[in-house]
């Protein structure tokens, strides 16, 4: 212990970490434990008393229609947004990387949706997709296609929200891929060219893709995490409708917890959400470990 830098300065170290540790205990660790405990009760805000009900809240989840719909919708949303936004991000990164001109412009154009306030852009999208006045439908009209109520129909609302999610996230993924592409040594492309791989797609499959593999997995996990947290567009445009067709997990937690104040039930939902985050985080840590081993 002693002899190392800062040895014997324990009191100073604790002085330095005290505010942050206090904050983390009060606002992260404590509340997380509280949610876990509350998920074992039948507490409803305003009820006279609450009882310990063990795992009843969890046992009730599989039979809970709203929860099943929300979970399924969240998974479908993620299953659309993740692969499309990752592949689009990769495609855009490859195109931008090799662009003969205007690289900064294109990179900024694709990244712009990432920095734009999601709620504001959600309202813009809602108007653009308006069944009678929205320019999207007017554009379809000029092609002879009848106007669609994209966000108002149970069958199209989730794919439409997913399309907005893709628009929001593709640029983010592109930037991560651009960083990955930059770390590929130029000489490898020259070596591949000497070996006869001189067509663009040959270079891609022999050099770029194998070396980009770890980045690709990393981006997929991050995209899954981000899509798992979808909330803004749903809260701003559809409120889970029509007929719960766009009900997603975070929106259900929000409504049950802060709309109906069913604290016990909402806490159990929150624990399911946390479990999902944990699984994805564990995958991410394993990937990061593996990436270190490559080097």
């Amino acid at each position, binding site marked *: 212990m002693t002899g*190392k*830098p800062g040895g014997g*300065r*324990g009191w*100073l*170290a*604790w002085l*330095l*970490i005290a*505010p*942050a*540790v*206090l904050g*983390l*205990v009060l*606002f*992260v*660790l404590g*509340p*997380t434990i509280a*949610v876990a405990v*509350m998920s074992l009760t039948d507490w409803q805000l305003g009820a006279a008393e609450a009882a310990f009900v063990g795992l009843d809240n969890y046992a009730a989840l599989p039979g809970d229609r709203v929860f099943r719909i929300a979970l399924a919708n969240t998974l479908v949303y993620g299953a659309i947004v993740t692969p499309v936004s990752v592949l689009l991000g990769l495609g*855009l990164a490859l*195109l*931008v990387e090799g*662009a*003969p001109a*205007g690289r*900064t412009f*294109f990179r900024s154009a*694709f*990244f712009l*949706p990432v920095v*734009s*306030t*999601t*709620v*504001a*852009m959600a*309202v813009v999208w*809602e108007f*653009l997709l*308006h069944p009678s*006045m929205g*320019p999207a439908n*007017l554009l379809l009209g000029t092609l002879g296609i009848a106007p669609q109520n994209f966000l108002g129909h149970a069958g199209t609302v989730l794919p439409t929200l997913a399309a907005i999610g893709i*628009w929001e996230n593709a640029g*983010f993924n592109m*930037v991560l891929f651009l*960083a990955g592409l930059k770390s590929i040594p130029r000489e490898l492309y020259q070596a591949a060219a000497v070996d006869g791989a001189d067509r663009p797609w040959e270079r891609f499959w022999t050099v770029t893709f194998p070396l980009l593999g770890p980045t690709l997995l990393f981006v997929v996990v*991050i995209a899954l995490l981000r899509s798992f*947290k979808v909330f803004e567009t749903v*809260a*701003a445009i559809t409120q889970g409708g029509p007929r719960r067709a766009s009900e997603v997990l*975070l929106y259900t*937690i*929000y409504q049950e917890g*802060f709309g109906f104040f069913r*604290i016990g039930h909402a806490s159990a939902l929150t624990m399911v959400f946390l479990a999902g*985050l944990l699984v994805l985080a564990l995958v991410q840590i394993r990937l990061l470990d593996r990436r270190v081993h490559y080097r």
Partner: protein
Amino acid sequence: MSRGWAAAALRLAVLGLAAAIFLLPFVWMVSFSIKPADEIFTGRLDLLPSSFEGFLNYARALELRPLHRYLLNGVVVCAAILFFQILFAAPCAYALAKLRFRGRELVFGLVLFALLVPIQVTAIPIFLVFSTAGLLDSYFALVAPFTASAFAIFLFRQFYRTIPDDLIHAARIDGCSELSIVWRIIVPLTLPAATAFAIFSVVAHWNDLFWPLIVIRSPELNTPPLGVMAFRSGEAGDRYGELMAGAVIITAPLVAAFLLAQRKFIEGISLGAVKG
């Protein structure tokens, strides 16, 4: 040679088309924000209004809702959050990176755990406590839960580990106290990491809807996203020209900042990827 030229042209054409699609919502947003109401309802696709009435929609949007107030709230909240995040995280990160003390592993474990847990998980208990204590519907409620940032601690710790111990040793031999080491050596070296973190933090909290939606009831405390929600659901909801003008006003500050410092923004935001 001509084949290379054709490939370059094709690449630019594809990129141009993709960029046009990505930018179209922005173009339409701005276009409709300067159109008079009757031109919006006739449903024509022209980008420019045939009779330009100036920025009337913007003036009316500001009349309908105090959007400038929402922006100011956003600035106050983001600045307060960032100030406390750095104030708390930097010393903690320094201690974790450079000092040996009992319980260090435990504290770092707490940081790693906190890194995993977003506000959506901790919202219910924090809300209940704030509600009991009468702290809801205030700047305090908007700021407090985010003041201890595990991500900031993690990031700064990584950064401090790259500072050679010898530098700190030399300063100690020269008679510097631990606090003046922090102030004279560490703080200046923190700036690049702090800049990247600042961009990440401001973008995240400027755009956050979940927590403000839970704790704020008074319209005068609306953050920018809450302001958009209020605008949409109120009487202005189907006055699309004003609505688009409002959306431009709310998105403009971050977009302008991004266009001025693109590289820094992309660095800062992609840093957050580790956090998911």
